[in-house]
Each structure stands twice: as C-alpha cells, then as structure tokens.
C-alpha cells in the first residue's frame, strides 16, 4: 500500500537487479510444471508428450492470445491502473471483425479495440474515474452492445481466411504464425517501455503522477494512449481468437481477464504501477498457459484447479521477496 520509498526502478528491460528475481523464479516454475506434468504422463501412459516440441509449440500458439492481452494489460498496470473491460473488448472486436468480414475484418477488429481502449482512457484520465470501476462499466456496456448486435442483426460470424491464417497456420508446418504475431507485439512493447518517451512517462506516472505532471509530462494524454494500446491489443487477441475457433461468438473473452492479470503480476510487475519488466510478463503468460494445460491433462477437478491457482500466485509473490514496508 505504501509506495516503496527506495525501490529500484528498471525501465531498462535487460539488466540485473531485483526485477530479475521474478524472471528467474517464473522460468524455474515453468520447468517445474513441465517436470510434474511429464511425471504424470510417464506414470499414466508411459510417454512424455509434454517435452515434445509440437506440444510446446501448440501451447505457445494457444498462449499467444493470452500473451497479447497481457502485454496490453501490462502497460495499463504499470500506470497503476487496470483494465477490466478486456473480456468484452476482445469479444466485440472479434464479432465486429467477422461481421465486417473480408479485407476489413482485421482493421475493424483492431479499430474497435483501439476505440474502446480510448474510451477507457478518457474516463480514467479526464474524468478521473477509478479505472477499476470505469472499465468495469465499459465492459458491461460492450456486453450489452454485443448482445443487441447478435440478437438484432444476425451478424456474419465466420472468421476470414486471413484471421485463420494468423491464428492457426504454421510456417513450414512448424512455427505457428500466432507465435510470430505475439513476438512482434512483444518487441513493440519492449521498445515502447524501454526506448521511448511514452515508456518513460508510463513508469513516471506509475510512480508519482503529480511529479510527472509538474515535470511537464502530459499525463492525461499518456494514460489515454496506454489504455488505447491495451484496448487495441485486446482487439488483436480477439481477432486471432476468432481465427483460432474460425468464428466469433458471445463470451469468447471471458476466460482472458484474470489469467492475464495473474500473468502480469506473476511476472513481477507491481500491481500499483511503476515497476516491472516485460520479460517477466512473457514468462508469466507461459507459466499460466502450461499450468492450465497440465491441470487439464491431469483431469484435475475444478476445486483442485482453483486451489492450485491461488496457491501458485501467492507462492510466487512470496518468493519474490515481498513489497517494501514503511520506510523510516
């Protein structure tokens, strides 16, 4: 709750420091999951599919949707805000994309995401409504719009070939295109965070907006842009997801908000903003995706899943050496 008085801050993405701890631990935990999962498969059917490239590639392909969402969300969380409108921003983008169809599908999808994000940004930055609650409202509005849309306009829901290509195609039958898309997004985010004024401003606002404002940073505009970017990424994820299941449908985004938040914080980003590295988020996503997959493979009942989820998150954050106490 107290803003740490003298915690290191590392906009430079690659450099040793306390921020590396999450990266290391997350990576370690990913391995642990794979080992446990393999142990299980060895025991049950004497094979170890989890260590085979095609399984891992498939997980990365599926994970890239979550990864893209998390990348966007991270920008917002670094500001000390949050975007709860992800589920229906994603769905809306997907549904409008398929409804537009043809060459327009992709731009429309991204555009919708960008637009919704911008609306979030306006509410949070200019009206100063707490993001927690404004984005919640926007989420509800988007749901309403999509329900009316499906009910009223019998929209086309089939994903275009391009969308399907981006989501499921594999280059040389090996590398999933989705993975490449995720890669591009990641590079963009890293560059933004570490090499641009915008990134610097995001960290500054996340730490102390007052000082950032008095330094002549246009904080409202920065917040607006960050939310818009986050929205656009949700939109992109939606478009890909529609491609993956060859169609857009109600509620397709529901499964993406909480895992994305979890991935970001497991990656070591401070939920209060100002601190965190993208690499951590990347690993956080992989961790979550593999955990999901292995639990599903183990046919873990829902109760067990929930408990394991919670425990993992707490355990990870505990080992990261805890937030600072009040400084003297």
């Amino acid at each position: 709750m107290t803003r740490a008085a003298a915690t290191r801050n590392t906009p430079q993405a690659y450099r040793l420091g306390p921020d590396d701890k999450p990266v290391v631990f997350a990576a370690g935990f990913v391995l642990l999951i794979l080992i446990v999962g393999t142990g299980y498969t060895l025991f049950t059917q004497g094979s170890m599919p989890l260590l085979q490239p095609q399984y891992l590639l498939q997980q990365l392909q599926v994970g890239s949707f979550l990864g893209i969402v998390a990348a966007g969300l991270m920008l917002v969380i670094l500001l000390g805000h949050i975007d709860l409108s992800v589920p229906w921003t994603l769905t809306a983008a997907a549904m409008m994309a398929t409804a537009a169809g043809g060459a327009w599908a992709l731009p429309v999808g991204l555009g919708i995401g960008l637009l919704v994000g911008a609306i979030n940004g306006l509410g949070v930055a200019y009206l100063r409504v707490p993001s927690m609650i404004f984005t919640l409202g926007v989420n509800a509005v988007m749901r309403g719009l999509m329900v009316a849309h499906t009910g009223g306009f019998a929209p086309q829901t089939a994903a275009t070939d391009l969308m399907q290509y981006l989501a499921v195609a594999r280059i040389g039958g090996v590398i999933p295109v989705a993975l490449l898309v995720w890669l591009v997004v990641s590079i963009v985010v890293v560059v933004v965070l570490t090499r641009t004024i915008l990134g610097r401003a995001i960290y500054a606002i996340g730490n102390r907006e007052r000082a950032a404002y008095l330094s002549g940073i246009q904080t409202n505009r920065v917040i607006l842009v960050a939310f818009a970017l986050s929205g656009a990424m949700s939109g992109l994820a939606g478009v890909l997801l529609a491609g993956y299941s060859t169609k857009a449908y109600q509620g397709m985004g529901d499964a993406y908000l909480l895992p994305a938040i979890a991935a970001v914080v497991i990656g070591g980003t401070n939920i209060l903003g100002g601190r965190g590295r993208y690499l951590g988020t990347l690993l956080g996503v992989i961790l979550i995706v593999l955990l999901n997959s292995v639990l599903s493979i183990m046919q873990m009942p829902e109760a067990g899943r929930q408990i394991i989820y919670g425990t993992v998150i707490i355990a990870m954050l505990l080992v990261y050496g805890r937030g600072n106490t009040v400084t003297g």
Partner: protein
Amino acid sequence: PKIVSGPGPDPNCFKPWSAQTKYMQWDKKPGPYRIAVVNGFVGNTWRIQMLQTAKAYAEQSGVKEKIKEFKVVSTGTDVAAQLGAIEDFINQGFDAIITIAVAPDGFDRVIRLADRNNVVIVPFDNVLDTDKVMQVNEDQLEIGRLSARHLLKELGQKRDGKILEVRGLPGNSVDRDRHLGFREVMEKEGKFQIVEVVGNWDDGTAQKATADAIAVHGKFDGVFTQGGSTGSVRAMMDAKHPFVPMAGEGENGFRKLIAQHASAGLKGFSYSQSPGLVSISMKAAISALEGNPMPQLISVPIPAVDYTTLKDNVNYWSNLSDNFFAANEFPACGVNVTAPEIMAKDAKNTQ
C-alpha cells in the same frame, strides 16, 4: 395448485416425464394473461436465441390473443436478483412466470408466494430439484445415454479403447446428468478408457481442452462433447487427428462440419437442448392458466439428428452462422419459430 390425475390436453406435446409423473391443476383464470420471462445469465448465443424465440412466439397468432402483457428481464447470474424479480412480478400481479433457474434450489419462498397468489411458475432448461412446480425440459440423462449409444453403434464390435468426454460447466446439474447418463451406458457396454476434460460448453475452452487431450493421449476412438462441439472438431482438425464417431450439441456449426466430413469418418450425432423450450413453457403456462390439468414434469422430445439424417436448410443451414442452435421448432406443439427465422433475419424486421 391441486394434484389431479391425468391425462392432460395435447399429450404428444405436454408429454409427462414418466408414468409416475403427477398432474397439477390451477384454478381457471379468464384470459388474456400477463406473462413474464425471468432469464438469468444473458450473453451467450443460446440465451439470446431463447429470448428472441420467446418474443417471436408471443407474437405468433393464436398465442398473441391470449397474452395481455409480456415482459422479459435478465437478472444475471445472481440468484438473489432472480428470486427478487420473480417475487416482484408476483407482486405486480402477473399470471405466469417462465424462468431458467440460476440454481436448482432456493425457490421455495417464491413458489410458496406463487401458490398463495395462484400464479403459475414454469422453470425450464435449468430445472429445480422440486416437484411443487410445473417444469419443462429435455431428459438430460437420456441425452447422455443417446450419445453413448450412438458412439457404441458407430464403433461396431469395438468395446475398448480411448473415449474423450468434454464436459460442461462444473457444478451444473445439466452437466452432471448428461455425464451420468453417458457413463451409465458406456460402462455397462464395454471397458473404455474415458478421458475427461472440461469444456464449459464454450467453443474456445472445448477447443483448447480437446487439443491438450489429443496432444497427450494421441488418438481417441470416439468423442462426446456436451457443448462447444465445433471447438472440439476444430481441435481434431488442427491436430490432424483422424475423424472418429462423435456426439455433441446442436450448434449449426457442428452440424455443418458433420455434413462436410461424415464421409471422411466424422460419424456425428447432434442432439439439441433447444432454445425453443421457452415457447413450450409459455404454451404450457397458458394451458395451465386455462385450467387444464398439466403434467408436473413435461418431457420435451429430444430433437436429435445424425450424419445420416442431416439435411441442408431443414435441420442445419450450411450458409448461415455457426453459432445458433439449429433445432428450434416443435411442430408437435405448434411451435413453428425456426432458428433461421429469428437468428438470420436482419435488423429491419427485428425492430
């Protein structure tokens, strides 16, 4: 309502669940009636189609005349809100309230009030664990059994091997019953290794879960997907898994895929928990208000097709969206609102 002895009117529409099913009779009320639909969760295609159907059915001639006021609310997943809405409509003096229960219990109070005010409550789809109200549903256990029998039939003599079961929303009674029905038959008939994953009746989730299962277990001999069937098939196609006998829900997309790939081995079976149930519930409510004795538990025939009986533009629509549920009309009940009529019309004739 009084407990009476059958039979009731229109038996091939209002089919009693079993021989033991008792009949209920409310005091006759003069029409036209005020009817409310209290939906819970909205925001998936099935619910939207259901609401549309309800609206369309209320407009249908022969029904229109009998309805004075028709109101629909969606209360979300919050049981307190749903109970509140039902009670509110009782207070407002509505004659019948159709609802999809958010939870199978907890309606004792509203049922008590309804009886006190001689209001007919008709839960359908997600029904209540009580025999104090008239309810409308398809037999979920039977759906499980039918699916199992289809797989067995398509497997021929084979009575072992791996079967994938993609389940629905954990904790939901529908999921439970379909599962039990399926297992009952499968386990009686053979010794299969049945792999269970959770698909939440959602295409994306089902698709991921199926993909994982295939990645780990290699090849399956048959698949039963409670919902999100399209997703399961997509996963198999992505994984280059050979097509195998399969049972699943009634999404148009699933039926399209069966029609396409049946020859390639996708020997599919598609039952349908039809959104049209709402119209039957409305019809039943009206009939009850008119003083007819009604079965307490009405079993709606399960509209099912398989790869042999699929017919384009009859029980699936190759040129329409994947998402809606193909089976919507119940001619036996004079419920003739077809899925395309409500899900494929454009903006102009909705407003």
